[in-house]
């Protein structure tokens, strides 16, 4: 059914709203991130059970996007009360239907256990992980079925587009975005409104609008979450952006590693086209916009905007010098505006709320909220959305629950290969674009990897250099060869072959590479080394001077011997050893037969006393 006017769309929305009973029982299940924990089997079991009990017409089973609390996957929620069930198994389905749906009773064992109070917390709103969050961009994620446009319309979807088409000129839209002070969520933090203005005023037709969904930073999955869980919010932001800059054509460049995001986007685009919300004369107005998906082919550097454009044009994704900036000379030489997924996700909110209301949240120079992906050695892994200005400590400890097994927090890595590691003493800094830069990290796209005492910071620096070496496009020498030299030096240090002068050499190389690389990838590639040198120089020195890895992480520096004084004589190492290299008898210290040991570190990972040295 094609909608020929804005009235048609409003009539459709009214029809959808009329048919929606908020008091109806609904079961929501995450069918995105939770799939890795078998959410599909849980969904099938719930559907079967509903059928068996004759409830399929009365109870709606909604396949949603990410709830955020990935650590508790698979997660299920039951409306209208918003009961939160975690780690649900297919065997729980029958009980959920007969107890909770029919009887209205809460199944205790499936609820969240608050370790501090020892209490069971059955409702999402009471769980500490959710309490400190402010879900604006993610407000629909985990609530709606991302494959259904009627769900999006029910929750105010495309209202911002209507507002723009009926009452705002392109210049006024740009003005609102400028006043909101929205900054690019992909990492750079450039003012979105300004970017739009540059592109709008650049000569040349047609203009292009691109969404950068090549979320390549390892440890980042915010954009994946948003695209999989609420693709229409991003598409609505794109439509508004296209209207503002006068773009006729657009692309969403999605990395190939996100098949589900691509699938949901394809469904969303098909729905928009058939409803007349994409294409020529959208909703009968003079505004036309054509949008297509471009799948990446596995190259981290394609997140860089000039490389991304080369890739869309079908070439090797290699960056080129700027200026000219894409706003002047972009895709096929025409003015092109590129924003990140989350940036577009903010746009409809700003239009609906107004710039003043929007910018009430945040710090002086960073407004609104930011989505972070919490991962690494932290209890509550998942997606969180917090107001700018929240302290890192609140995210990592109050929301994230700190490192597991009571291990000591060591550092948090932000901004992926372009970012840095922040140690404990700086956790009380309010997060915004500028405060993080002053700490030697960057906001980046929002990946937050927590490290504990068992992570070696030299090894982390080496990891990132190896990553950069794999992903450097090879066009400019500082990045291609400079990071190779840095990798060789840091590898040497992790193998116990480092020299004292290496630290100075690393610093010098880092500064040279920063100053002379062609694109952002190379210019920021030394950051992980610089930030670990800044805060963890003693770990580098322990490797170099004492030939010791304090975290017992670098294999060449581990003796694979048991410290009998530390050994708790628990025998866990023997139990987990895959090659039978550990001998242990009750009440005696373990020992390792080095001829059988394959140095897999399974024993070290599991030893409660850090007794394997």
């Amino acid at each position, binding site marked *: 059914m094609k909608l020929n006017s804005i009235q048609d769309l409003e009539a459709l929305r009214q029809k959808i709203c009329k048919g929606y009973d908020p008091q109806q029982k609904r079961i929501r299940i995450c069918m995105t991130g939770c799939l890795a924990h078998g959410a599909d089997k849980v969904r099938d079991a719930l559907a079967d059970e509903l059928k068996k009990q004759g409830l399929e017409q009365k109870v709606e089973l909604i396949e949603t996007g990410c709830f955020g609390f990935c650590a508790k996957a698979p997660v299920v929620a039951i409306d209208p009360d918003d009961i939160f069930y975690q780690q649900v198994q297919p065997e729980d389905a029958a009980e959920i239907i007969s107890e909770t749906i029919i009887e209205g009773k809460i199944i205790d064992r499936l609820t969240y256990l608050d370790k501090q109070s020892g209490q069971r917390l059955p409702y999402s709103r009471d769980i500490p992980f959710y309490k400190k969050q402010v879900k604006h961009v993610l407000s629909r994620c985990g609530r709606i079925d991302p494959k259904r446009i009627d769900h999006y319309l029910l929750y105010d979807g495309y209202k911002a587009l209507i507002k723009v088409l009926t009452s705002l000129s392109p210049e006024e839209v740009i003005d609102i975005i400028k006043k909101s002070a929205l900054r690019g969520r992909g990492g750079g933090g450039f003012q979105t409104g300004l970017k739009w203005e540059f592109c709008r005023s650049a000569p040349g037709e047609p203009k292009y609008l691109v969404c950068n969904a090549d979320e390549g930073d390892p*440890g980042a*999955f915010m954009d994946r979450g948003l695209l999989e869980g609420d693709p229409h919010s991003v598409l609505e932001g794109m439509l508004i952006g296209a209207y503002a800059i006068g773009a006729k054509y657009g692309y969403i460049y999605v990395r190939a590693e996100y098949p589900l995001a691509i699938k949901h986007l394809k469904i969303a685009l098909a729905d928009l086209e058939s409803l007349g919300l994409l294409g020529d004369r959208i909703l009968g107005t003079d505004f036309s916009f054509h949008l297509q998906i471009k*799948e990446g*082919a*596995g190259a981290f550097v394609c997140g860089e905007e000039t490389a991304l454009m080369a890739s869309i044009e079908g070439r090797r994704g290699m960056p080129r010098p700027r200026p000219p900036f894409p706003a002047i000379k972009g895709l*096929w030489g025409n003015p092109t505006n590129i924003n990140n997924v989350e940036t577009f996700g903010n746009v409809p909110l700003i239009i609906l709320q107004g710039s003043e209301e929007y910018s009430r949240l945040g710090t002086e120079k960073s407004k609104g909220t930011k989505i972070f992906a919490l991962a*690494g050695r932290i209890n509550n892994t998942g997606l969180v959305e917090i107001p700018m200005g929240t302290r890192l400590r609140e995210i990592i400890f109050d929301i994230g629950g700190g490192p597991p097994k009571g291990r000591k927090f060591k550092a948090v890595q932000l901004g992926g290969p372009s970012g840095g590691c922040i140690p404990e003493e700086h956790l009380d800094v309010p997060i915004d674009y500028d405060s993080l830069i002053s700490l030697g990290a960057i906001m980046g796209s929002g990946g937050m990897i927590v490290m504990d005492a068992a*992570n070696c910071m030299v090894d982390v620096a080496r990891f990132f250099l190896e990553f950069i070496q794999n992903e450097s496009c090879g066009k400019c020498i500082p990045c291609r060869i400079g990071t190779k030299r840095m990798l060789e030096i840091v590898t040497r240090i992790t193998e116990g072959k480092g020299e004292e002068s290496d630290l100075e050499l690393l610093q010098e190389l880092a500064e040279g590479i920063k100053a002379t690389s062609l694109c952002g990838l190379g210019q920021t590639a030394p950051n992980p080394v610089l930030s670990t040198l800044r805060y963890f120089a003693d770990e580098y020195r322990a490797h170099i001077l004492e030939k010791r890895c304090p975290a017992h992480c670098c294999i060449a520096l581990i003796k694979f011997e048991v410290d009998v004084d530390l050994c708790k004589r628990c025998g866990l190492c023997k139990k987990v050893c*895959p090659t039978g290299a550990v001998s242990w008898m009750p009440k005696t210290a373990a020992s390792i037969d080095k001829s059988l040991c394959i140095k897999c570190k*399974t024993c070290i990972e599991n030893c409660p006393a850090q007794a394997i040295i």
Partner: protein
Amino acid sequence: MSQSPDLTYVKQILENYKNKSGALIPVLQKIQDHYTYIPEEAVDLIAEALNIPPSEIYGVITFYAQFYTRPQGKYTIRLCRGTACHVKGSKSILENIERKLGIKEGETTQDGLYTLRTVACLGACAVAPVMMINDDYYGELTAEKVDKIFTNMATGETRESQVEK
């Protein structure tokens, strides 16, 4: 030497993409999906149809991690080597799988069953360390779990019995 593949599919795809700008990468992706790799014989056909020199096509194939020039195994293992997986021990997991299959990263077992690859990040960081075998995700890997997954695969058990926490 292997037989040269049936190129009917390549010709079909090229028919759909003729005269389209930016067609090369989508064309390669379609061919790769179909054949599991980009056959040498396909490159000449692409060059002719899209009017791009073969050298440039090889440039693109070798630039992107997703394109292969050799057939892939029946099961492609994609082990994530992102940051979250790294700090949770994915390197040991990789070494473990390499030992188990007797191949290195990027190689395919002699019987053509398994190809082992690492990827920069699967974006499933919340369940790190993680890998995919074809389209299925396996999260929170440990040495023990990896053992079990491969034993089950060898005995032909499907994933159903392997979903675990």
